[in-house]
């Protein structure tokens, strides 16, 4: 049994298709990332998995429990860090943690020791008596994480965990997530930060316009583009017939114009450069700049996003 299983998960808001037949499985102990641009359907997917939004179609199982038929059982096994830091502003940090434990049915002693532990792990101890309304955005985010961990869930959902955090807080958040996963917790997170997905996730699903367009490890996703490393070239003045020549070149897989630059995807940059040199001599063209680039997760992302865009 996998920790999270989504089958044809679909959500319509009226006419709007927010999540379109999404399928994926998250293994126990895995950090699984949902990467996509704004409005792609990341939050809606998390909300369906955490029982807050009813799917229009499809099913999902979390910790083996169907979120529609056995929501209470599923809820016992996960914690949630939502998009918005939802703490009780009027309660102190300590009382927020204690209340979070209380609604999970933990005894007072359990809650006390667990809250103490979380305060020290998350470096919140010195803020324990502060009202949550007086916390900075980063501290609030940590408190929300603490509240989600109170009952030591097996599965943790995080919707843009590091959004709005500065560099230090972001690093602490990511380190904490990594440690949790090392101790066997399954982590499902959403992000539109490619670097975050790359650094943190064992596997990434790229979601664009309500659909998953790729699921794989960050490394494998980069490999899919490895066949087409890219060379970026810019001319003082584009020679006529350049585009046709590029497209006809037998080493070139794809050509894209980025501003005044041409981005040429090729499986073999050095052979392409050789033929480019010949071409330049023949056409007496002046090269302004040239750059060879390895694939980044960003390239994968951009290529998938643009391809999904073309498909409608």
């Amino acid at each position, binding site marked *: 049994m996998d920790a999270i299983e989504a089958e044809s998960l679909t959500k319509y*808001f009226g006419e709007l298709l927010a999540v379109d037949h999404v399928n994926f499985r998250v293994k126990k102990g895995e950090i699984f990332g949902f990467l996509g641009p704004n409005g792609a359907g990341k*939050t809606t997917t998390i*909300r369906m998995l*955490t*029982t*807050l*939004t*009813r799917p229009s179609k499809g099913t999902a199982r979390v910790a083996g429990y169907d979120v529609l038929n056995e929501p*209470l*059982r599923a*809820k*016992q*096994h*996960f914690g*949630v860090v*939502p*998009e*918005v*830091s*939802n*703490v*009780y*502003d*009027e*309660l102190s940090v300590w*009382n927020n943690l204690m*209340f*979070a434990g*209380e*609604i*999970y*049915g*933990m005894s007072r002693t*359990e809650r006390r020791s667990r809250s103490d*532990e*979380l305060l020290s*792990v998350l470096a919140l101890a010195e803020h324990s008596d502060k009202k949550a309304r007086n916390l900075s955005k980063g501290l609030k985010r940590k408190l929300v994480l603490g*509240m989600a*961990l109170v*009952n*030591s*869930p*097996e599965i943790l959902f995080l919707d843009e965990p590091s*959004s*709005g955090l500065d560099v230090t807080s972001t690093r602490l958040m990511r380190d904490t997530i990594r*440690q*949790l996963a090392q*101790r*066997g*917790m399954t982590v499902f997170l959403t992000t539109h930060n490619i670097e975050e997905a790359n650094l943190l996730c064992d596997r990434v699903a790229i979601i664009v316009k309500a659909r998953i367009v790729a699921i794989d490890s960050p490394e494998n996703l980069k490999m899919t583009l490895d066949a087409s490393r890219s060379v970026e070239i810019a001319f003082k003045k584009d020679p006529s017939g350049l585009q046709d020549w590029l497209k006809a070149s037998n080493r070139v897989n794809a050509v894209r114009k980025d501003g005044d630059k041409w981005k040429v995807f090729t499986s073999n940059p050095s052979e392409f450069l050789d033929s480019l040199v010949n071409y330049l001599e023949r056409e007496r063209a002046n090269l302004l700049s040239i750059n060879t680039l390895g694939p980044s997760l960003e390239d994968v992302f951009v290529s998938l996003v643009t391809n999904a865009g073309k498909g409608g």
Partner: protein
Amino acid sequence: MDMASSEVRIRPVRYLTAAWAVARKDMRIYYFRPGNLMFGVLFPVFLFFSFAVGRDLPVEILIPGLTAMAMFFGSSSTGAMAIPTERKTKTYERLLVAPIHPISILLGQTLGGFIFGALFASVPIVLGIAWFGMPVASSPVLVLAIALSSFTFSTLGIMFAAIPTESPGDIMMLLNFVRLPLLFVSGIFISLDDVGDIGLVLAAISPLTYSNDLLRWAVGGTSYFGPAIDVLGIILFAIVFLALALLLHERVRKSDRTAGKRKRAKEAASA
């Protein structure tokens, strides 16, 4: 950190402990909110005195009326404040993703208003006894009357809070739209002996009527309907309000109506 899962079984007592946790949280956060104090405390007190002054009513009529009104406004205001506020801050979703039954959430919120109203109601009662030498014909019935009334009025507030808004003002306004007219047909300002047939029909559909009537019986020993009908009436309203509250809250929860405001909250939070 110990990440071993702590398996929580849902025992019947969990329904109550979860409800109590929610109630205590609401008590801490919302009792002293300006909106609650304004509509729940000051409003009924001023309203009452503006009617009672100069009418030379006996204390056995005056205090039960004031007590019933205090609860009618006080108990129903807490939920009406808390629920939309928590929708806005998204803390409501904290309860929805916790392994607690929707009934526990509703019951907890009801308890919050119930305790507020009951505490608030004891002020005129204690003042009446200590200061004006108010008699008490039956203290058990007095306690019962306060408990039943406060609970029922609290469920009224919870029921109205199902309206999928994030603004407590919206709920308060709609609630007053109902509370104010009911106030005038419930035999507090005009005795039920003097209202005629139509007046009695109107009085019968107001929970405040039975509350006021039962309190009069508990204090002065006389009432219009008698304690049995009053108790039944109040309980009936509690059941109807609670059932409707559950139905409406569940319907709203499943309908994406409140989820639609997420984007705004997100933008506000990151601003």
